[in-house]
């Protein structure tokens, strides 16, 4: 294995670890910072905030994104909000409580120290965003407003209508723009990373393709930061943007970076249901709707075909409120999603194919008036109306779970550095903070925490020993990486079969959704592991990738990503099969309580699974490394939201 596999958790009590670590981390002096070139891949909340902050500190930053502008990164689509332990509501919140909710929400499969740090810096994020001009919702007195979110009993979520991700990203984009105009950050839009270059065991560069011209380029840096988001699109249909992909992290994995917990994928309970094969993506309806909406299905199968407004109150099953009276409609995402699947499996689902449940607002409208509901969620109701043609003020929304976020990602230590020295991974692309299930409004928090407040301290700690070690792109490793990248592109263009990319990708997605989705079992995963190599074979022999490489070629872009998904899917299923317990979003049907809840096996699986790529010319079974998780502060309990 390249580098080392040590989490580097600082010493000291939990609440002192981050402070101690910062106190002793090595620094780079201001006049030396401009001698370092930092490569940041991705311009979402994590990458954008990191690039802007490092640029402002005086490093020379090169930032890359596949979109035509950094403002379009997929963080922009996050709706509901961002958590912070401000306790502005005086309702009992604290850093500890945010930490505890997050680690419990993750079903005790994340590191105490990382999660505590996240909760600790959460307040700084809100301060920073407000200073940048993010127009968060406010109360009449002019102070910041909060709403509640799943998995918490306090109101700690800050929001900007249903567009919180957009506003936070625009804040971070404006900071990035300021650095671009100051010349500290050089931006490379429409540029895709195709490989990480390792020189003498350290990450020292990348190979990219200019998506507009097809030109292959090489960039050398003193460190490489991957902020390339999650891999939800491995399922073909997800709430991710069309371009989201696993290529950067997967190719880093093939270069020796460990991939951690790839099977931890979040299925969000409130999305607009799937309606046909033509569909290219699924749309999320923010979890915030569950503050006022009530989730239900008919008690009787026979009522499913009826119009919802004709089903009397006593014939409705508000199953979340029934099963989880304490958290009710605000139960965490994994639990709510599985509960929806369960009632649909019982034949009580509604809408086409019986794959949907109602999210009704009739009670809230009666209690608060339509105007209040319109103010709170108006834009979400409009989106719903656009897509389905239905007015949710009159009839309940139909929702169903969909792939939304991936907790797994490249393994990183406390410094957010992978096992490969110099390769840092931040935001959704790493595995670090959400365990086996992420709570709502925590993704935005993590992305910005990593970029604004963690990496600017941990990166210099690495750089301090790297002065003058940046290689030139003439180095043999660069040439080799470039040759490999070109060979792969040539191979894709030469398949020239008669099958479309979407067809194969869709087939892969259906297989994973079925066998490695909301519920998994031994037989299903074995079956998926049989079928994935067949699909891969089909891809490499039958797909048609038109056009050529030195051009704007969207088919070629997608082909490269699908090729990586077809390999990555196997790793996901191997991870799901090896983790022979249920935890959070990873629900192995063999392991459940008598009430059908996830049953953890802490004795054998309270650890991170970090996979190392193995090859013998072909893809060989990956090698497992386990990082045991130590819980010194929290007591491991059966997660209960009843």
């Amino acid at each position, binding site marked *: 294995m390249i580098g080392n596999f040590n989490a580097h958790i600082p010493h000291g009590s939990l609440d002192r670890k981050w402070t101690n670590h910062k106190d002793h981390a090595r620094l780079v002096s201001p006049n030396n910072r401009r001698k370092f070139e930092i490569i940041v891949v991705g311009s979402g909340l994590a990458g954008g905030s990191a690039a802007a902050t490092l640029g402002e500190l005086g490093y020379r930053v090169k930032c890359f994104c596949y979109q035509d502008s950094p403002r379009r990164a*997929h963080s922009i*689509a996050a709706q509901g909000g961002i958590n912070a332990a401000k306790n502005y509501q005086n309702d009992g919140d604290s850093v500890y409580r945010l930490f505890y909710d997050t680690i419990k929400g993750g079903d005790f499969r994340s590191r105490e120290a990382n999660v505590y740090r996240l909760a600790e810096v959460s307040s700084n994020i809100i301060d*920073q965003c*407000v200073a940048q001009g993010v127009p968060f919702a406010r109360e009449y007195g002019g102070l910041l407003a909060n709403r509640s979110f799943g998995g918490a009993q306090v109101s700690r979520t800050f929001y900007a209508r249903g567009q919180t991700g957009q506003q936070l990203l625009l804040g971070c984009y404006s900071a990035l723009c300021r650095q671009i105009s100051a010349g500290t950050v050089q931006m490379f839009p429409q540029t895709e990373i195709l490989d990480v270059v390792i020189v003498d065991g350290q990450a020292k560069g990348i190979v990219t393709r200019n998506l507009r011209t097809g030109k292959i380029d090489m960039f050398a840096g003193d460190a490489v930061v991957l902020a390339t988001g999650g891999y939800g699109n491995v399922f073909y249909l997800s709430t991710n943007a*069309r371009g989201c992909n696993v290529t950067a992290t997967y190719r880093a994995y093939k270069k020796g970076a460990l991939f951690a917990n790839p099977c931890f994928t979040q299925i969000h309970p409130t999305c607009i249901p799937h309606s046909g094969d*033509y569909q*290219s993506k699924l749309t999320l309806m923010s979890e915030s709707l569950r503050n006022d909406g009530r989730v239900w299905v008919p008690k009787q199968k026979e009522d499913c075909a009826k119009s919802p407004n004709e089903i009397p109150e006593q014939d409705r099953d508000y199953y979340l409120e029934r099963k989880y009276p304490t958290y009710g409609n605000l139960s965490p995402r994994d639990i709510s999603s599985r509960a929806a699947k369960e009632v649909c499996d019982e034949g009580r689902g509604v809408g086409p194919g019986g794959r949907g449940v109602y999210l009704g607002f009739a009670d809230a409208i009666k209690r608060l008036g339509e105007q209040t509901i319109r103010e709170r969620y108006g834009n979400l109701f409009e989106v719903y109306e*656009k897509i389905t043609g239905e007015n949710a003020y009159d009839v309940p929304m139909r929702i169903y779970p969909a792939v939304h976020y991936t907790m797994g990602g490249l393994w990183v230590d406390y410094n957010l550095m992978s096992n490969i020295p110099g390769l840092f991974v931040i935001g959704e692309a790493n595995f670090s903070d959400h365990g086996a299930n992420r709570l709502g409004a925590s993704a935005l928090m993590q992305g910005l925490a990593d970029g*604004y407040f963690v990496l600017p301290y941990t990166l210099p700690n690495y750089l301090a020993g790297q002065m003058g070690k940046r290689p030139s792109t003439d180095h043999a490793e660069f040439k080799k990486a470039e040759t490999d990248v070109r060979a792969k592109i040539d191979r894709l263009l030469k398949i020239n079969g008669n099958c479309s990319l*979407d067809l194969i990708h869709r087939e892969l997605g259906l297989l994973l959704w079925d066998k490695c989705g909301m519920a998994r079992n031994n037989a299903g995963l074995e079956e998926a592991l049989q079928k994935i190599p067949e699909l891969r074979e089909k891809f490499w022999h039958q797909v048609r990738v038109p056009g050529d490489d030195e051009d704007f070629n969207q088919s070629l872009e997608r082909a490269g990503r699908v090729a990586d998904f077809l390999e990555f899917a196997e790793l996901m299923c191997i991870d799901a099969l090896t983790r022979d317990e249920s935890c959070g979003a990873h629900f192995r049907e063999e392991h459940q309580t008598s009430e059908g809840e996830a049953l953890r096996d802490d004795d054998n699986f309270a650890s991170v699974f970090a996979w190392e790529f193995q090859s013998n010319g072909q893809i060989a079974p990956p090698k497992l490394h386990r990082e045991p998780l130590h819980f010194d502060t929290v007591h491991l309990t059966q997660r209960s939201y009843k």
Partner: protein
Amino acid sequence: MNFRLRIWRQKDRQSAGQLVDYDASDIPPQASLLEMLDIVNERLVLNGGEPIAFDSDCREGICGTCSLTVNGEAHGPDHPGAACELYMRKFRDGDTIVIEPFRVRSFPIVKDLVVDRSALDRIVQAGGFISARAGSAPEANSTPVPKTAADLSMEAAACIGCGACAAACPNASAMLFTAAKVSHLALLPQGKPERIKRVVSMVHAMDAEGFGNCTNTYECEAVCPAEISASFIAKLNREYSRASLKGSAGE
């Protein structure tokens, strides 16, 4: 549903382009316009053709990547909404649908329906920000912002940066885009220290990119997927005049 499509095809920036006819048959009414294009492309590829290049990413109307002119209207007939939020059930069976890129001199065509909107990024780089170093921010509630100001600021901040305003404008003006960013920041107390410099720099950058001027045709407001009000252009003009006066007074 069945449609006849007339789609702009152009190899690259230098080549001449033209409208090419395609048949789109058996399209589900629940499909979006972009999903209809996906279906057409899939069929094109299987028949040995080259797919139509078009931009899209989030496909839920927030990222601002899609940039199509449909039947002469930026983002098509179903306002407010981006082209990705346009569903085929809004058309009639048998309709002819003309799809072109955004037509703005400052947005050169990259290929087919894809345009280069980096001019908008450069306007923001000229001053569309508040200089706030990470780590230096004061406590978030230390500066109360009246709810009305915060709400109005949010209305301006909702701009998705698609450029439809410029595409719809007979003068190809990016005033609504620039006005939205200037207003968003000018309405907040945090934005006050750089208020003068910001508006002047951004307006100059906008002019340097070759965008036209506003002559109050309100086409921008009509097509804006984020429903940004044209009254923000009046706000921009006020901000600019104010800055010019204060700037010349040495403030």
